[in-house]
């Protein structure tokens, strides 16, 4: 089945608000798009649409968290992380308040809205805040596992979600520990660490390469921070050439995280697939992912050009 991770976010949150009276939900005039409205429908008294005022939404979430609530705050990734970055740093993460920020429509697959709405720096700016946690699920099932997991912790975190539908990678209710990397396919010599919808692209590239007798390993990295260093090192050790794949600028995202782990524990040649420090443009999700080399064929081509 193909579902958008934002849909799964809303569904799971709607379930959790019914079970836990200490969960509150906030949005910034995009509750239908982020699907947080699903939670708003079942617990309207604990749902707050803050209007087009993202900085205020984050600050309000901080106040609710400072009063014992677990606050889920969502809007498009650009406006969830970019506009209120400093409020997130100083009013949420530094005071260690229990705010879960969900950014939907991340990456270039938001499509036709174009650059102003294409968050390709959100992982980078969230990653640079000390102790901020980041989860970037690959499909609907993994999204639900992430929402369940973060609802039980007291840590501030950022959940990166997409607008476009993605084919299921996992079976619902059967997702392994999301704080660890998941080796989805074991190959030899070459490994791809992928995150978000790039997991699907990497799996497609693997199928294409298999036909040519090249058997690559595909790893899903949902927990960007804190990183599963031990798991990553294990993969690095067993492979010669490493690729990373993310729908994000290649600077300071997944690729940088893997490279940092690698230089510290197990040096390898690493090729980062993503936006090569460039803004994209308007176009449909499928057209853009193809044009910017982020679909299965793009990952295949990137790997072919280095082996």
């Amino acid at each position, binding site marked *: 089945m193909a579902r958008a991770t934002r849909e799964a976010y809303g569904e799971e949150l709607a379930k959790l608000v019914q079970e836990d009276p200490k969960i509150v939900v906030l949005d910034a005039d*995009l509750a*239908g798009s982020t699907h947080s409205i699903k939670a708003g429908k079942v617990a309207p008294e604990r749902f707050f649409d803050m209007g087009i005022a993202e900085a205020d939404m984050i600050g309000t979430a901080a106040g609710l968290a400072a009063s014992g609530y677990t606050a889920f705050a969502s809007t498009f990734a650009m*406006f969830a992380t970019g*506009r209120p970055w400093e409020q997130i740093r100083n009013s949420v993460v530094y005071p260690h308040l229990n705010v879960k920020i969900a950014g939907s429509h991340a990456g270039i697959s938001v499509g036709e809205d174009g650059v102003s709405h294409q968050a390709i720096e959100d992982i980078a700016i969230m990653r640079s805040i000390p102790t901020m946690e980041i989860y970037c699920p690959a499909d609907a099932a993994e999204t639900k596992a992430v929402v369940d997991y973060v609802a039980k912790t007291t840590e501030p975190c950022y959940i990166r979600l997409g607008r476009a539908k993605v084919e299921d990678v996992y079976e619902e209710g059967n997702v392994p520990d999301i704080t660890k990397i998941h080796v989805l396919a074991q190959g030899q010599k070459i490994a791809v660490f992928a995150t978000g919808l790039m997991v699907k692209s990497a799996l497609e590239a693997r199928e294409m390469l298999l036909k040519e007798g090249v058997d690559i390993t595909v790893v899903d990295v949902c927990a960007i921070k804190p990183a599963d260093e031990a798991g990553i090192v294990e993969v690095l050790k067993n492979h010669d050439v490493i690729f990373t794949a993310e729908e994000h600028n290649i600077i300071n995202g997944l690729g940088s995280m893997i490279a940092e782990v690698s230089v510290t524990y197990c040096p390898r040649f690493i090729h980062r697939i993503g936006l090569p420090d460039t803004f994209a*443009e*308007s*176009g449909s999700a499928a057209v853009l992912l193809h044009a910017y080399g982020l679909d299965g064929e793009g990952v295949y081509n990137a790997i072919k050009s280095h082996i």
Partner: protein
Amino acid sequence: MKTVEELKQIANDVRIDIIRQVSRAQSGHPGGSLGCTDILTVLYFNVMDITPENAVSIDRDRFVLSKGHASPALYAILAAKGIIPHEELKTFRQLDSRLQGHPNMNMVPGVDMSTGSLGQGLSAANGMALANRLDGNDHRIYCLMGDGEVEEGQIWEAAMAAHHYKLDNLCGIVDVNNLQIDGTTDHVIGPNPIGPKFAAFGWNVIEIDGHDYNEIQNAFAEAKTVKGVPTVIIANTVKGKGVSFMENNVDWHGKAPSGDLIKVALNDLGAQEE
């Protein structure tokens, strides 16, 4: 100067082009584009001194579309002014097009600021107005905001600054259609009343019917004569104006019509499918 009848004809053509762009792209924002069409038509044809010849220059009046999602209206106006080729409207939101989903000032002549993230345009307009004063010219700066958009705190930071720096060469317009995305503005967070808020920040406030050509023209004329403080025009509009099923309907904020609805929309505007 165009007559009111001529302006109405242009505005109708612009509305047709809005529907065609959004329908071809199967994405974009028809409601907020149709609603501000009359204001933009007056601004570009009878108020601002922009021409195809000076479009790429800053030595003229400038306009910031702070509610950047109304790009189809701006592109259609620029085509009607002969600043961009009319044919180019077909590329709206497609790969390799200059007509990005939200306006890019470096790609399109006549687009004076890149926008799309709400709440930022008035600050940029302030900067342009300050620059005009430093440069000693008397060009004017116009900035169109949405009534949902003014929920952004930055708008009020800019409102304070524009008054403090006595930016009487700046004219803001708020497109008050009482709708945003999650519902009516009153339901979502209640930014009203907007005029008195600007008045409290020291602005000269003019409230008009945003579809009445005389009121629109008079408001821009008055704004030019007010010295010492910035002016904001509170324009009451109908989101989706001109297309029956889109009027006052929040569902058509950011959705393209398809199939028969395209026909209905064009028919409402006296046009057919191409």
